[in-house]
């Protein structure tokens, strides 16, 4: 190990195959490490800056040049944020809408995904194609008619209207992901055995397949929850009055009003609050990420 690299990086393992490598590999490795460090800075700085600001008292934020490592921390911005916007109420709204939408779309998606994964029937390819198309084409191309549709039903500025929009928005994604899961996780022998035993098709699905696939279904439910939780576009259109707003719209309002530097720690506190629930459920689905995300797109 004759090259000069930082100690931590010259551990065995990192350069385990260095002896094989030629001179240009050393250069490549150093370059890759340098770019990776720069990228890590890019990836982590915004999150650190949000957390830091949300715990900083006002007088420290006003200091120039900005303080990188706060000497004093306070939870005051969190209570202050709730005074400026009804933050906790917004979080509850978001939770309610997202959980309901995730529940409904997962149940509907389950039955459709199962038959699309398992049976060949006339029209199955077309149905699958339409679902894929709806999943791919951006939401902005269908917001206006849906806005009028919800308005005509008198559901503008109601939870029901937003939940309906979320179910429509998340369903194609949930169907595709679950279809991939059913194909890979549930062997066809399972319900073949049940059918021979005299089960009906629905009974085989309900009693045999669903219990086996519960973990995957839970993961899909969490993903649809995240879709709804993260959404800004639909919520800003369909539910933008008073106390019923979702937290993402609350953040958007906060951003648009500007608020100035004196409120920025409260603003960042609201951002932390709007991120934490997503983070918590994210930890649960972590190990499903790769399989789940590729299921919908790679294997159709």
């Amino acid at each position, binding site marked *: 190990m004759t090259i000069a690299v930082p100690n931590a990086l010259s551990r065995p393992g990192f350069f385990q195959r260095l002896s094989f490598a030629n001179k240009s590999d050393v250069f490549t490795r150093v370059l890759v490490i340098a770019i990776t460090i720069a990228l890590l800075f*890019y990836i982590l700085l915004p*999150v650190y800056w*949000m957390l830091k600001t949300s715990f900083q008292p006002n007088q420290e934020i006003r200091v120039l040049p900005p303080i990188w490592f706060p000497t004093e921390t306070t939870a005051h911005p969190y209570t202050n944020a709730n005074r400026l916007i009804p933050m906790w109420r917004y979080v509850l709204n978001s939770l309610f809408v997202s959980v309901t939408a995730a529940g409904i779309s997962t149940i509907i998606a389950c039955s459709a995904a199962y038959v699309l994964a398992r049976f060949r029937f006339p029209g199955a390819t077309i149905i699958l194609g339409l679902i894929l198309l709806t999943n*791919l084409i951006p939401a902005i191309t269908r917001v206006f008619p849906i806005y009028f549709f919800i308005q005509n039903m008198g559901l503008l500025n109601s939870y029901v209207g937003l939940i309906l929009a979320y179910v429509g928005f998340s369903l194609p994604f949930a169907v595709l992901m679950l279809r991939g899961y059913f194909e890979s996780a549930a062997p066809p022998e399972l319900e073949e055995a049940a059918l021979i035993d005299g089960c009906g098709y*629905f009974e085989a699905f309900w009693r045999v397949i669903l219990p086996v696939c519960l973990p995957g279904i839970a993961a899909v439910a969490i993903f649809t929850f995240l879709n709804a939780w993260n959404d800004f576009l639909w919520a800003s259109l369909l539910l933008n009055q008073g106390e019923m707003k979702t937290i993402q719209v609350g953040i958007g309002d906060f951003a648009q009003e500007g608020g100035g530097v004196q409120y920025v720690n409260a603003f960042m506190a609201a951002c932390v609050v709007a991120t934490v629930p997503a983070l918590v459920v994210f930890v649960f689905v972590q190990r499903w990420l790769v399989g789940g995300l590729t299921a919908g797109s790679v294997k159709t």
Partner: protein
Amino acid sequence: MTRQKYLFCYLMVAPAMLITTALGIYPMLFSLWMSFVEYDLLRINQFGTPFVGLDNYVEVFSDPRFVQTLFNTIIFTILAVAATLGFGLLLSQVLNANYRGRTAMRMLVCVPWFVPPAVASAIWMWLLNTDRSPINFLLQDAGLITSNIRWLTDSATWGPFSIPMMSIVAVRVWNGLPFAVIFLLAALQSIPRSLYEAAEVDGASLWQKFWYVTLPMLRPVLAILITLLVIGGLGSFEINYIMTGGGPQNLTNIMAVYSYQQAFSFYRFDLASAASGMIFIMTGFISIFYLRSQLKRVA
């Protein structure tokens, strides 16, 4: 037996199909129809919605702001896709290599994934605040700049590029990078080790292994990823809408924001639909090609 099976299949798929049609396919087509009629909320009671052919498209294309917006959207998409791919390829290699602390690295790289786009916009607005941006102070300390960069408000342009556009692209890439990295990592893990071993026997350098083994093996996955990123970029909305609202001087305006503003600020749902119709045509075209190649592989 077959009839019973088909009946079961259709019953099971019916609710999903009903919702996908009512809240997906039908609104998309209705939106397209709106772009061919007059749909001005301020005139609709008096004049209804007469068919006007391509007039709405002619009207938006004669608006220089729209043409600029269309170019912005394309440049925004190209820059964001290119940066996401470049960074994604590099980081997925790093996360796939063998070293202590790899799990921690994987988690750190995934951090922006669970930040909602509205929050990502909010954080970056504060981080890029002209007078208080830590990045400006770092650059000043390094002697690279003499006056603060106005990240989101500088209206100087270099051809189609401007500082606010770059900032917005940086936020978009930041938010979307983890998805690309994990997507590519999954693909890297499925490349057989024997290919690399064979290359090593032949004395290939790291770069050669990447160029002659990794990239060719990644090609199908890269095609999918690029398609998804391009479609996502063309329909992107939240970050531009929240951070700049399309400004300064329309420099960061993109199609979805233009469409949204035409609809809900000026009540011109016909022009809004013409703009979103452009997104529909572009993304629909790409999607159809994508679906054909995907469905062919299944059949």
